[in-house]
Each structure stands twice: as C-alpha cells, then as structure tokens.
C-alpha cells in the first residue's frame, strides 16, 4: 500500500506528497527518540539538536566538500550519533527531571551554535543551495523520488530499531528503565546501555536531518528549536512510548492534524493542544502503547506477573 500510495496522491497534488514525506521524516525522529525515552526510560528533551546536527553536517559536507548525498547521509548520521554519545557521557549519572534539563540545555546550545557560528553556518541566514541526491547521473527532482527514499529510510529505521529492542539489548534496556538498581544487581551495566540508546537515537535523528537538508535544499537554525524537540516528544508520548508503530502513528497524527486544521487558522494550535491534553487524561499510554510481553524466556507469563 505504501508503495502505490504516491501514485494515488500524485493525482491529488504535490502538497499531500509533501505532507507524507514530512510524516516519514518525523516517523524516523520519533522512532529514534523512542529508543531513548520509551525503551531506555531516559527523559531527553533535546532531540531536535541531533536532527539539526544531522542536517547541518550533511549540508556542509555537500556544499563545501562536494560529497555525494549517499556518503553525506551516513556521515551525518555517524556525526549525530557521536554527539549522542558525547551528550550521553556526562549526563548519564543524571535521572528524571535533571536529565530533562540538561538535554534541554544541550538542545539550546546546539541551536545557539547554529545561530552564532556565522563563519560556518551563516548564522540566522541559513545555508541555501544544498544539492539533491543523484543516482547514476540522475538527479532527484520530483517528490516521488524523495518519497521512495524516505520510505526506504523509515523502513530501515523501523527494522533496525525493532531488531535492537527485541534483542537481549532491548531486554536490558527495559530492565534499566524499570529498575536501575535491580539491573545492576543482575549484571547489566546501565551506563553502557544508556549510552547505546543515546547513540542510536542520535544516529537515526541524523539520518532524518540529512534527508531534510537535501529535500528542502536549505537549512536554518529556526527549524531546530526547543519547540521542535517538544513536538517530537509529543509524537512519542501520543503514539505510545516503547512502541514503534505507536511512534509512527504519533508522527502521522501530529504532522497531519495541524495541516488538516489549517482552515481554522488561529485556533488550530489551541485545538491540537486540547486534543493532546484530553488524550493524556483518558489514555495516558498513548494510542498504540506498549503491549506487555506475553512470553518471557520460560514461556507464557502468568496473569499478574507481567507488569
């Protein structure tokens, strides 16, 4: 269905193609944040920073070093992942609110660097003229090509993160989330796994950033504000934390809803806020929250045993 979708949408118009592509970008972002928040249980508030680092790295590589998109994309992801690791290293000792504040600060620092390091980032003027990806001499020009690219990237992200969280690593992450002391007592080193979560989260956010840079062909600091971090966070929470389909659903809702509500102009943001508040009151686990596992290593979990 996802493969033929653009053929239908193209009949309608480019605008809807664009919205679907944006959903793809935000799905990757919310899935990557879900690793940190949903699975590792680390309340991080600066996800737009990784997105921005990915976008700026890819943009600078492509503009100044004429690197092809296909190299810039993984490079940007690695750089963003590295920053995830860097951020993770000092803040790993912090928990809960304190971690939230530090990551929030990190997000602001990154944005301020984008604004003030004028020699490299051109400050608030942004970086225009980022080339589109090319395949064997064919340059991406239509929305269709970008759609299939983001579809592939989103599926890759889904697949990789799915494998990670459903492996032993994922179980360790969940154990840390539920009880860090207990995790330590059974030989899981929380620091190692938390760092891994930050790195993976940053890595995939970097992919989304690099794609965005090439798709829009322009990056500026105002796309990576605190509000954008909160928006991604809302996608994770609304969709349901520790659930990948939930993250995708959250992205679909929070990208689509403001667009559908455009006809209400002034009230749309208010209405969206109201919808999220109601959601949190009546269904705090999100639309597609975590299903607690029915099986463990020894077979069926008996009633009352699973949390």
């Amino acid at each position: 269905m996802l493969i033929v979708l653009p053929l239908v949408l193209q009949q309608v118009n480019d605008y809807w193609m664009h919205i679907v592509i944006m959903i793809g970008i935000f799905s990757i972002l919310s899935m990557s944040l879900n690793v940190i928040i949903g699975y590792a249980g680390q309340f991080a508030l600066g996800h737009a920073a990784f997105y921005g680092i990915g976008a700026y790295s890819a943009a600078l590589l492509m503009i100044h070093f004429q690197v092809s998109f296909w190299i810039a994309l993984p490079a940007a992801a690695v750089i963003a992942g590295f920053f995830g690791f860097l951020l993770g290293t000092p803040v790993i000792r912090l928990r809960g609110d304190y971690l939230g504040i530090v990551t929030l600060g990190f997000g602001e620092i990154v944005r301020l660097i984008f604004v003030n390091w004028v020699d490299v980032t051109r400050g608030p003027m942004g970086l225009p003229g980022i080339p589109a990806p090319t395949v064997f001499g064919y340059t991406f020009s239509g929305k269709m090509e970008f759609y299939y690219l983001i579809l592939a990237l989103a599926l890759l992200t889904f697949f990789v993160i799915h494998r990670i969280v459903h492996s032993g690593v994922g179980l360790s992450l969940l154990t840390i989330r539920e009880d860090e002391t207990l995790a330590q007592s059974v030989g899981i080193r929380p620091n190692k796994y938390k760092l891994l979560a930050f790195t993976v989260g940053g890595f995939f956010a970097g992919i989304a950033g690099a794609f965005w840079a090439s798709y829009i062909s322009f990056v500026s600091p105002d796309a990576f504000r605190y509000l954008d971090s909160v928006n991604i966070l809302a996608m994770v929470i609304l969709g349901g934390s520790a659930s990948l389909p939930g993250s995708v659903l959250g992205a679909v809702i929070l990208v689509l809803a403001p667009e559908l509500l455009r006809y209400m102009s002034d009230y749309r943001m208010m209405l969206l806020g109201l919808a999220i508040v109601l959601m949190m009151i009546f269904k705090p686990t999100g639309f597609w929250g975590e299903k607690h596992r029915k099986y463990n290593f020894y077979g069926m979990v008996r009633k009352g045993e699973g949390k």
Partner: protein
Amino acid sequence: MKRSFLTVILTGLLVGLLGGCAANDGAQAKSDTIRIGLAAPISGTQAQYGQAFKNGAELAAAQINEAGGIGGKQVEIVVQDDKGDSNEAVNVANKFVSDKSILAVVGHFNSSATLATAPVYNKNKIVEISPSSSAPGVTDAGEYTFRVITTDAFQADYLAGWSKELGYSKVALIYEQSDFGLGLLDVYQKSAPANNIEVVAAEAYNPGDKDFSTILTKIKDKQPEAIFIGGFYNEAALISQQAKKLNLSVDFIGVDSLYSEALLELGGESVEGFKLIGFFYPGGDNEEATKFAADYEAAYGSQPDTYAAYSYVATSVVIEAIKEKGADRESIKTYLETLKDYKGATGVLSFDENGDVETIPSKLTVQGGKFELYK
C-alpha cells in the same frame, strides 16, 4: 464508560477535521475570485508581525473589491500560518503551489522562511514577494523571488552618503553583535572613505546589554562628531541616555531598525535630534503613506506599523500586476520584472534584475518627541 467517552470525543474531533476539509475544498472551487496567498507568522513568537501582515494585505484587497474588483472579479487573500518556522513555511509553500487558483504569494516574514521556500516557489513558477525579508541573499534564490524591502546593505550605504551631507568627518560605530549589525558595520566602513568619513571607532554590544558606559567612554576619547547605532531601538535609547550622563555631546544616526515609536517612549528627551532613515512615513510628502495610514486606522482602529505598510505595498503591487497583465502566474512575474516607479506607501519602487527593490527612503529626525522629516 471512560472508553466510550473517549471514543465519542475522538470521533467528534475527527469528524470536525474531515468536515472542515470538505468545506475548505468547496470554497476553493469558486473561480470567480482572484486568490492571492499570504504566508505569515500568525501564531508563535512573531504573531504581532503576522497580524500586521494580514491587516495590510487584507486592506489592499478590500480597497480593490470596493472599487469593483479586477474585471468584476473579487480579490481574496488566502492566509496561511508559517509560525515563523522554516519547516512549517515549506509546508505552506507546498500548499500554495499545488492550489492552481493561487496566483502569487505575499510572504514570508523571516528571511530564513523566504529562503527555505524559494526553491518550492521557483520550481513551480509562482511569484513570492516578501514584504520584510531583508537579508542580502534572499533575491539570489531565484527569479520568482521578489521583495519590497531594501537590503540591510543598501541602508548602510545610503546612511554613509547622508552622513557626508550632514558634514560629518569622524563617525564612531556602535553595532549589535549579530548578522544584522555586522552587515551594517561592514557596508558602512566600506562606503565611508568615498564619502570622506573616517570611522574612528567600532564597538560591538550583545543584544540585551544594559550598560554601555565603557564603550561610550572609549568613544569619547576619539571625539567623533556622530555615532552610528547599528542595532535596535531598545539599546539605542539606553546608549543615548548614558551618553548624556557622560556629557558626550554628539549626534546619533541610524537606519530603519531604530524607526519605531518605542524609541521615543524609551528614550524620552535623550533621543531628541536622532537622525535616521525610514521608509514608511505618513504625514510627510508621500501622499500614499498618509492615505494608507488613514485608511488603516479607519479599518482597524490603530496606527499601522512598518510591516503592515510593507505587506500592503506587496499586495498592491501584485494586484496591480493582475490588473495590467491578467490573472496568470507567469505574467505577474514579467510585470514585476519591468515595474518602474510604482508609488507606494513605503516610497517609489522599482525592481532591479535581481528582484530587489530600488527605492529612496525618507530622512527623519526626532523633534519635540516626534519623528519629523529632516530638512
């Protein structure tokens, strides 16, 4: 019980959404109107400017509609909120270009939003005319990108010429540490020698600074005849007050960014004699500006600011293009390219080959707590 309540609410919301969509699509089908897009930050931190944009553009449309529209067709302004965010701006741009009934787009407010959306508009060959994006690179973004505001560079260069007329030979600069302030400094310094002006000092401050006494003491030793404040009115008011305290008697000069009622309110007596350039000056020799200010006040009950005026002018230019060349995206562009000496509320406009506006600002000075034309 809880669950069913939730279902009701969600269904309600969803039906509302879809219903709204349907209603919206219905409105778009009408072909007896001429539709112009307006992209502005209606919500978010810059909402005040977005509102000014909206008022200005809608006033221009209302005036033409009262006069019978264009060839009997009514002009409709389609407002979309870009939140001043380049992400959102690209969404808006895509929405506009895919709606075939939109003939041109007035917007965006921020330079970054204009730059981010320029590829979309240029690829789909639709004119975007920004009322307020003054960053130098904006009009290089494509041939369909225009603006009715001059660049920061133009203003600094113009000010250098005026400084010479005022007879200054030694000028000190106090500028804001931002791309805006640095840009002004750079251009002013380059234009100074040609105008026989020596820049005796250039001191930076950070936006939000409160104490300028160190900077001013340093400058006092250099004995300049005038100080050019390359920043915004909050700091300019403080600088002039602190200069008074230090018994530093010099003239102050500045550009459009100081031109705000807030400068008078904050600065009081100390800003008397400030000389600055501005584009939208009602009550002077620009009849269009005076007329616009009166119409605006009649329609909205408040004084228009510069951004409302720019938005009004941008919309009027597009309307003029449709009047002259017909309702077609491409012909609006050809009209704008050849536009010469259009009399608007922000001065007489022409576009150069880049899509940049060429206009002559008003020379203003503060007298008796009011902005007056400098004579």
